[in-house]
């Protein structure tokens, strides 16, 4: 608007100092008209500043959506690889309508982790009550961590291994009411495990897995079969995220059977129970969020569960004070609590407490084996949705931990 100010100055100067057109108006209307006539001689088109023009173009052309999550055409995939894979990205493409979406994405990281994934989805069948999806992926994670099984695994035993898999899954689900979803799936998983890969030398001071573990201490290290897998999952979601403070509860129950197709050694059932409760307090000015997660992998008779498919504990989404994948075993228990307070529309604070453990079966879970941490952090986003979080965790066995992560914890 600088130009407008300039033109107004001209008008005002002319008015005050008596240029010809304004010299002696005989009425208020004449004076105003004279001022407008003077302005008419000095009009300029509106010229947005460069930042304004850029921001308008981004909004008007949906550039962020087009670049990062385009409904049609090419876009860039950012992230999406498991924790510890490093910053990843790659090209992607999609064609979607309201009834079908076909997507191919890829991502690679500096640690040489990579993934190619494809999805064919029908998300709105039967008036939005039924969905069917076909997912496939091939990926390699060259530097996965393994420190041994059980809650007593020593950090000094930390090793790395390479994990590859090829996965194809078909999922179909029904959502008879908004708060209930029931889904079933079947598919095939072809994993492969080997010595660590990645950049030369891997992680400094972290040897390859075969130097410290064998097939007894890391079941499945020597041979990896293909798995047929199928299962059912139920979600009851009564959370209400439309209000400023999240409220309500969510419960997930899932079961999936893995059938060893090649070795008849590693078949198992995977059970997951995950409950979350959001309690608004002080009329929603604060939120107490609690999560409890229990996972158990039950081997078929005479079988065992491969180490690389066992649930892990530690990292930004579980025990934040622990390194990612610090513990793993057949059974996992995790408790998390957060006290959240919004600071402004874009920023919130949080106090958190995490506790969890792993064990070789539910009967071996003990309170003594639980690892705890606590900490505080900031959440950046809008309304109740976090885009980025920065946290510092204390009390974990690995000392003070800093977390910088996209997205929420739970």
């Amino acid at each position, binding site marked *: 608007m600088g130009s407008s100010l300039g033109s107004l100055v001209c008008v005002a100067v002319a008015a005050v100092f008596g240029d010809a057109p304004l010299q002696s108006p005989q009425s208020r209307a004449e004076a105003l008209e004279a001022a407008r006539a003077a302005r008419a001689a000095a009009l300029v088109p509106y010229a947005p500043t460069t930042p304004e023009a850029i921001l308008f173009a981004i909004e008007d052309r949906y550039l962020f959506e087009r670049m990062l999550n385009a409904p049609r055409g090419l876009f860039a995939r950012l992230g999406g690889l498991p924790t510890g894979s490093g910053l990843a990205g790659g090209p992607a493409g999609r064609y979607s309508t309201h009834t079908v979406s076909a997507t191919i994405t890829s991502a690679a990281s500096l640690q040489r982790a990579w993934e190619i994934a494809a999805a064919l989805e029908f998300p709105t069948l039967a008036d939005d009550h039924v969905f069917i999806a076909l997912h496939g992926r091939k990926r390699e994670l060259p530097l996965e961590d393994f420190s041994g099984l059980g809650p007593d695994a020593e950090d000094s035993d930390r090793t790395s291994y390479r994990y590859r898999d090829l996965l194809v899954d078909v999922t179909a689900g029904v959502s008879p009411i908004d708060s209930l979803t029931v889904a079933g799936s079947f598919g095939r998983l072809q994993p492969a495990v080997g010595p660590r890969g990645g950049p030369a030398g891997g992680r400094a001071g972290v040897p390859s897995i075969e130097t410290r573990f064998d097939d007894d201490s890391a079941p499945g290290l020597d041979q990896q079969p293909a798995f047929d897998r199928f299962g059912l999952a139920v979600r009851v979601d009564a959370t209400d995220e*439309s209000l400023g403070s999240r409220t309500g509860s969510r419960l997930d129950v899932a079961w999936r059977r893995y059938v060893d197709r090649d070795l008849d050694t590693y078949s198992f059932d995977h059970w997951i129970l995950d409950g979350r409760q959001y309690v608004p307090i002080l009329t929603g000015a604060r939120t107490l969020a609690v999560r409890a997660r229990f996972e158990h992998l039950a081997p078929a008779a005479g079988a065992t569960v491969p180490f690389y498919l066992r649930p892990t504990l530690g990292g930004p989404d579980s025990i934040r004070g622990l390194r990612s994948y610090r513990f793993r075993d057949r059974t996992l228990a995790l408790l998390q609590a957060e006290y959240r307070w919004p600071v402004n529309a874009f920023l919130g604070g949080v106090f958190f407490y995490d506790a969890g453990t792993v064990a070789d079966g539910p009967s071996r879970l003990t309170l003594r084996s639980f690892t705890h941490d606590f900490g505080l952090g900031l959440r950046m986003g809008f309304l109740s949705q976090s885009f980025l979080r920065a946290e510092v965790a204390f009390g974990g066995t690995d000392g003070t931990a800093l977390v910088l992560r996209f997205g929420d914890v739970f």
Partner: protein
Amino acid sequence: MSSERPRAKRRRLALALAAGLGATVVAAADQAPGPRFYPDDPIPVDHDRTQDASGVRPQDLSETYDFLEHTFVARGDRARIRAVNVNTVDEVPDSSWFTNRIGRRPMSVAEIVRGPDRVDRLEAPEWVIVAGKGPAGFQPGFRAVDPRRPDELFQFEVDLEDHADLASGAELIGTTFYHAIGYHVVDTYLVNVHPSQLRIGETATIRDASGRRRFAQGDLDEVIRLAAKNPDGSIRMSAGRFVEGRPIGNFRYHGTRPDDPNDIHPHEHRRELRGNRVFCAWLNHDDSRALNTLEMLVTADGRQFVRHYMFDFGSILGSSPERWWSGHAYLYEPDSTLRGLRTLGIWIPPWRTMIDPRRQSPAVGRFDAASFDPPAWRPEYPNPAFDNMRADDAFWAARIVNRFTDDAIRAVVAKAAYREAEAARVIADALITRRDRIARTWLTGVNPIVDPQLSADGRWSFANAAVDAGVATPAAEYRLTWSRFDNATGVPVGPTEETRAATLDGRAPTSILNGSEFVALTVRSIHPDHPVWQAPVHIHFRRTASGWDTVGLEREVVEGDGAQKRNPIAP
């Protein structure tokens, strides 16, 4: 308290301009050389369409830039000056911006409720969708026409499933009040449309991240899926008309439009934009920003000019319940952010816990009276015109708000046809209480003398707007200073006479009146509870054939007048 005379102010303005400062570049025409009062003062109409504006080009507005610009930079001129577009009796003349309605004449409840509507009911057996709604706003919708009247285009917006009646009710209420107040608004209707009445036009398009493409059945299905439905499957929508003219963008709340020859008053110094803060506070129109304005290039009498609209009221009345800061805080405020961080969340603003949308009807948003503190009310981010609002601007607006009776307020809320009677009651009660709080705050923030008159036989009278509104007791005394006035030089001349009165009328000194063409009167009101009332009101009378006309009224305001609590970002 300033005792500077208007003429001296004018000289100072001239000096400032000569020095190239430009900071007080306002009221260009008002400050032109010539008499203080022209024969046509006070003008009831500013004919701001005298210059052909056909050269105006559409302007784009970035929502993000607008937020960043106003949040981190104090845009516009921030001089604490009187609004520049008021006439000589401190009123807003009609213009392409504003048409005095309830502020100038009585309006019946029926007239208020009818608002800008051109038809009693908007109905059609079929609506043909011609375009998607576009990305702006929270509510899903589309653009459609009645095929019997294909030239009349409407934008339809639905209420979200969890909040039936919420946004559409707000849209109706906001449109109706803003029309009665005096702003240009588009006529908007409530309609109940069954999905079977909707047909997608053959050429209908929508623009999204895929680019412009054909409006598909899936697009309509998505709108219907998100919408709150009536028991019979129909959907309640608001339908706003696309008004005549060519859309050329939005107006900013600062500066002027550089390609509009008629736009000579900086927007941040326009009274109807400054005073809009009061109306927005009343209705909790926290989304009052440039993006929710509209400028149309219209043709009349063979000439084109720009008409300025207020637009999109769907988010007033706290209709985005998840926005917990609505009306109480900017999206970003450095002070409260630091305090929130420093106290690790222990500090909670008092207003934060005073309303809980979950405990009330889903048709009611974050809208209450208990937490309403008029001077502390805030839009989502700073607005230069709102920041410039002085006590005299707020007084002007508060008088308008106070003219809405309880019956009128309840009738306007009834127009929104809330299906839950309790929702209508809660909203109307809150509006009434907020109106009263506005009156108590802003009718008493200046010396509230209004409607001064001087009769042919020398009897003067005026009214006290605060007393008339029932928000203050009568002043203990009025101190009047009379003098003759030289209209050519703009200063009082000759001796002054001071009189005192305990009532609102009396007799003017004949020594001043006799032989005078203009008379200047300064009124100070003495009230123990309202010391700001001692700030003078300057009144000027002009002799006419039949007596005296009031040609001038200006209120002095006290610096730091408390009209609004400090904008933490403003300089």
